[in-house]
């Protein structure tokens, strides 16, 4: 990172030199007008006054609180849905989806790794508030605050269930996406979460055609598969899942006791209801045990292998960084392997900067990627290893209960529970 910083300073310095050389001519006086003509100044409309950004934080905190209340105390789907629509309109269509908590991961990563980059209070709040709420109340952010979740939730009309095994393996993508997003952000290469955000073009009602198509496709899938982005892609969701596992309070399907009536079994479109399990199958106990032991041994192997692999692909990955791309292009041109020049390569040559300098910068970025690759690959390997261990364990459950990690607290299952109806009737009676 230090070298990276140096490169920036050097860049600024060379820029200053260039500016200094150019300024002499720019200070050349304009003509003397005899007709009394006065030089207009260029128009400089100021950025939109952003008092809203602090309002945003308040709205976010408020929405999180209301959402948590609705999910845990009120236990009613209808107001949750209303809050969701509100968030969709406010954070989505009104505030155009920037900055969102999901994208804030990147700002935070870059800020941690790049000494020259700092984030504002708003970004930090957007990143931290949902995490803190999740630590206490479960994923109530996903339930009704996140506009990306909301837009998918409102189009869910004909849920089909995704088999548990498919869900488990597809979710690997989200972990990978998180790892890469942090890697790209930390190296200052790109904010991929923003770059490939499928819904923000809808919020802005304009955007790149390809992204609009991607968003439309995801929404179409979302008509049948509940919240596909949240479940299989969302990198922030990956963090929320882990925090939600240790949350203080959580959603429960039944208000008091589970009578195992099975009515709620199909109520969750996100496959987050865990069924009661039976006892340990005695027949293949030994086999299961040895499998578990094998999986535990596999964990460090997978972590190391993942790290090695990702570090090896660090070089191609580093092409995400504009400097490496430029160096690559220039290298090919120098070697005569590429025809002609691009805007970027001729712009670079025009600056008169040394090739060596560019290559050095590219090399330092590559080495950052090689180091970062170990972390990301190790992380993904660890995730795969833990998944294998989890699927080799036999856990006992007596009741129907939401999966602590997977439940997005949408509140759909409440009304399926006969005990809930009893509770509501009691409440009604008490009121009258």
């Amino acid at each position, binding site marked *: 990172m230090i070298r990276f910083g140096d490169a920036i300073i050097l860049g600024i310095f060379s820029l200053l030199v260039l500016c200094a050389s*150019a300024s002499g001519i720019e200070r050349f006086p304009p003509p*003397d007008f005899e007709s009394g003509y006065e030089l207009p100044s260029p128009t400089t409309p100021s950025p939109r006054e952003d008092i809203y950004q602090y309002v945003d934080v308040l709205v976010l905190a408020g929405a999180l609180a209301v959402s948590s209340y609705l999910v845990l105390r009120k236990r009613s789907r209808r107001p949750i849905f209303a809050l969701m629509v509100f968030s969709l309109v406010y954070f989505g269509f009104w505030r155009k989806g920037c900055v969102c908590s999901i994208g804030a991961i990147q700002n935070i990563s870059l800020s941690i790794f790049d000494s020259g980059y700092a984030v504002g209070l708003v970004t930090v709040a957007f990143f931290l508030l949902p995490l803190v709420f999740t630590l206490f109340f479960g994923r109530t952010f996903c339930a009704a605050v996140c506009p990306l979740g909301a837009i998918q939730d409102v189009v869910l009309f004909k849920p089909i269930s995704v088999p548990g095994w498919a869900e488990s393996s597809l979710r690997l993508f989200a972990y990978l996406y998180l790892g890469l997003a942090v890697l790209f952000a930390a190296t200052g290469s790109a904010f991929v979460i923003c770059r490939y955000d499928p819904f923000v073009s809808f919020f802005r009602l304009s955007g790149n055609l*390809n992204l609009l*198509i991607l968003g439309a496709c995801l929404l179409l899938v979302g008509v049948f598969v509940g919240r596909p982005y949240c479940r299989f892609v969302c990198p922030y969701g990956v963090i929320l899942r882990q925090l939600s596992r240790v949350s203080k309070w959580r959603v429960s399907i039944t208000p008091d006791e589970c009578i195992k009536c099975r009515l709620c079994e199909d109520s969750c479109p996100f496959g987050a209801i865990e069924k009661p399990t039976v006892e340990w199958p005695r027949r293949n106990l030994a086999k299961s045990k040895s499998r578990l032991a094998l999986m535990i041994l596999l964990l460090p192997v997978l972590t190391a292998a993942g790290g090695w692999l990702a570090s090896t692909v660090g070089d191609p990955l580093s092409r995400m960084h504009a400097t490496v791309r430029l160096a690559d292009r220039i290298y090919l041109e120098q070697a005569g392997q590429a025809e002609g020049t691009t805007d970027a390569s001729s712009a670079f040559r025009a600056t008169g900067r040394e090739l060596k300098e560019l290559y050095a910068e590219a090399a330092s970025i590559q080495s950052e990627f090689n180091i970062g690759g170990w972390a990301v690959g190790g992380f993904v390997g660890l995730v795969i290893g833990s998944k294998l261990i989890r699927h080799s364990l036999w856990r006992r459950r007596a009741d129907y209960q939401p999966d602590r990690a997977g439940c997005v607290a949408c509140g759909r299952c409440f009304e399926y529970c006969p005990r809930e109806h009893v509770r509501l009737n009691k409440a009604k009676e008490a009121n009258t």
Partner: protein
Amino acid sequence: MNRLAGAVNTRITVGVVIGTAIIIGVVAVFRLDSTGKKGSGLGDEFKYDVKDLGKIDPELILYEQSSEPIATGLEISRAIAVDGRGNVYIAGDNAVRIIGEGNPSKRIELSAAPGCVTVADDGRIFVGLREHVEVFDVAGKRLASWPSLGDDAVLTSIAVYKDNVFAADAGNRIVLRYDAAGRLVNRIGAGDDTRNIPGFVVPSPYFDLAVARDGLLRVVNPGRHRIEAYTFDGDLEFWWGRYSAGLEGFCGCCNPVSFALLGDGGFVTCEKGLTRVKIYDAEGRFVGVVAGPEQLTGGKWNICEIPSACRLGGFDVVAGVDGRIFVLDTVKNIVRTFTRTRAGK
């Protein structure tokens, strides 16, 4: 049974829809060009292209580069001059460098960045700094520093003729005539309807002058694309030159940026934008080309990619007594030498 078939049918339909959507989505992501690889995607009408204008018929090129370019050894070069012995004087940075054939190069340090330089027959060197003139002897000793012309002054050219020194002030759009001692004699070229002088239009700091053999002062009026002849008393006698993107005229908004007189009374002119060095005869008729963009800027049609380079892009031209033409490339900081190899029309 029917219901089951229906359910199966629905499942298949849904599966197909999801599958198609996923495939289209993946294709859309991979076709997304976020790094500008596919270019701006704008039509030809949005491209700025002067390539065709920069092409010059090789038949018209009368000169050839006669030796390796000389590096000026300066960070920023501004102006060039030659004396009768073939020494080349280059003003730039905070110095004047003298590169002689066979002699080691000399360097005269200045107090500020120079804008122009010229050499008198007796070897004295006149340097125009931003707003005043300084005079040096051959050894580099400062003989005089003339009074400042004020903050707005930008001296871009200087010429010595007998006891007269002329300096072109681009900032005030005027030519100053001094005597040898540095006393201001008169100002030439201010707009004056009674004398039929339209005044100089100088949009950028390129404003050149020289004294021709006929004893008249020649000054570029760049905004009007012409070279005007004045008496030393400031009467406008005649002018020649016109705007044209073609070879006969001067291109762009304000050209030529510099010129020099040839031994036969003709002119060698230098333009920026489309960097061209051309020959005109004493009456201002186009004769031929010394070098075009291809020779001067290495095949590229415009000299600059980035604005800071564009700002440096007014080359300076000077002619030696032996007929060689020296072109100072202010971007690459080199001096190219051209010799005539062909007779013109």
